[in-house]
């Protein structure tokens, strides 16, 4: 006798620990195998692009903090860069260095969280995560030292940063930078050769190079698929051209490669931090900019390599105090486009891991 079977639909989320936020995945399953999925988003939609049109340019800086809320420093940067491009504001050299120091520290913090939560999705419930948080905590302490905030920093301004770094910052950062490589090695030893991790990540959720490019995927996900594309190199901004660093890439584009790229990027960020501390010039950190800034009529797009991918702001000005239009190119949303192709044919438990390996932040997906 043959058993009659039929596909069935289950909803993962919107409130579910493996969805990293309020994300819903409607999966059609054949037994345990995923036949089709549909991401359903919008649970955290606050209409940031709309709110931004009703506030002046400066008031929009804290709004950007609330996009990828685990990487606020990286969100401030492209927004102030876009306004600076539009209004032709020059940034003092010291401020450029401070911005890069913040952005690279933020990259380490964000990748630690990505790797930690990926391990969570694999079932090592909160053990690696706690270790990652130990290091992330030190970075957050440093952020608190410069701007008094631990999550939503609101630190960058048009023409620089809000305050200069305090005297105790550089010694503390030097200590962090000298100990960080040891911790990264430790995590890598614990995780990279772990049998379960290898079994669950190797060959799972492959994103081929051509599909990755065609799906507009960016960031570590694109580089794991073998595309050497990093905005810091290919469209160098700020003072990144003064540092020596490599772009880690992998070949296959599976979950393991995405993990590898993140681990290696943390090492490169440490390298950039070391050089930035050495080169940090004295001087002003904030150019004089009118608080009621009215950029000339026009449009500008500025983008950076944020921890999750290419984060860009497209601004249109009509010479008033408020932006006429602000569009955010959110890497988390666009990276999700490739999810469907990656999970079809895998078991549901693998789909969770594949989703986790993309590393999205719902604040940025929904905006």
């Amino acid at each position, binding site marked *: 006798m043959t058993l009659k079977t039929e596909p069935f639909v289950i909803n993962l989320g919107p409130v579910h620990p493996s969805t990293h936020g309020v994300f819903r995945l409607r999966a059609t399953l054949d037994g345990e195998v995923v036949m089709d999925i549909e991401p359903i988003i919008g649970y955290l939609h606050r209409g940031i692009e709309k709110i931004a049109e009703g506030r002046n340019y400066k008031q929009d800086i804290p709004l950007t903090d609330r996009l990828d809320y685990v990487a606020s420093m990286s969100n401030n940067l492209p927004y102030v860069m876009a306004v600076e491009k539009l209004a032709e504001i020059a940034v003092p050299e010291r401020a450029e260095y401070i911005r890069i120091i913040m952005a690279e520290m933020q990259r380490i913090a964000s990748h630690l969280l990505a790797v930690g939560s990926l391990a969570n999705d694999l079932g090592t419930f909160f053990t690696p995560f706690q270790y990652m948080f130990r290091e992330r905590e030190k970075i957050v302490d440093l952020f608190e030292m410069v701007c008094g905030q631990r999550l939503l920093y609101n630190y960058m301004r048009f023409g620089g940063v809000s305050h200069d770094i305090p005297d105790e910052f550089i010694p503390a950062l030097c200590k962090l930078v000298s100990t960080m490589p040891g911790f990264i090695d430790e995590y890598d030893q614990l995780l990279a050769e772990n049998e379960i991790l290898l079994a669950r990540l190797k060959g799972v959720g492959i994103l081929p190079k051509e599909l990755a490019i*065609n799906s*507009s995927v960016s960031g570590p996900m694109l580089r794991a698929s073998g*595309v050497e594309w990093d905005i810091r190199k290919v469209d160098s901004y700020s003072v990144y051209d003064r540092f020596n660093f490599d772009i880690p890439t992998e070949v296959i584009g599976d979950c393991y490669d995405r993990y590898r790229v993140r681990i290696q990027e943390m090492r490169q960020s440490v390298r950039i931090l070391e050089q930035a501390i050495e080169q940090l010039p004295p001087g002003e950190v904030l150019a004089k900019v009118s608080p009621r800034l009215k950029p000339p009529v026009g449009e500008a797009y500025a983008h950076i390599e944020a921890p999750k991918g290419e984060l860009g702001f497209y601004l249109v000005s009509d010479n008033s105090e408020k932006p006429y239009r602000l569009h955010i190119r959110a890497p988390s949303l666009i990276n999700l486009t490739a999810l469907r192709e990656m999970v079809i044919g895998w078991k549901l438990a693998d789909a969770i891991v594949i989703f986790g390996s993309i590393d999205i932040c719902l604040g940025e997906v929904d905006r």
Partner: protein
Amino acid sequence: MTVALSSSEIADRLKNQFPEAITETKKECLIIKGDFLLDIASFLKNTPDLEFNYLSYITCVDYKDYFELVYQLVSTKHNHSLVLKTQCRQPEEPIVDSMVDLWKGADFQEREIYDLMGITFKGHPNLKRIFLWDGFQGHPLRKDNSNDTEN
């Protein structure tokens, strides 16, 4: 550095094949007619020395008289970029061709524009609201949106 290709040079190349397609050539962008959007995009993607294989982002701006669609095209092989624009001058029923067949990355972004700006993308495989719920009335990013309150 990503080189922003000169839009007048691209326009010259397009003129042979699409003599009536170009509306305006600006320093930083190329504005074309909506009817030719798909053909020109496909030409830009498939011509060997242009090879715009990466669609960085799509967005839309409401200029009250018309909607302007903005496409940032990038070539990861040649490391150059181009901003392509098209203007939609039927404010009642704005409609443009979907780019999903050429670049899959357009999928969610076009749904976002449909949801928030109310542009219909012809040929999109799954055009429905992405952030707001199905029964929602209006499109919040439009300048004449009736849900707006003074702030």
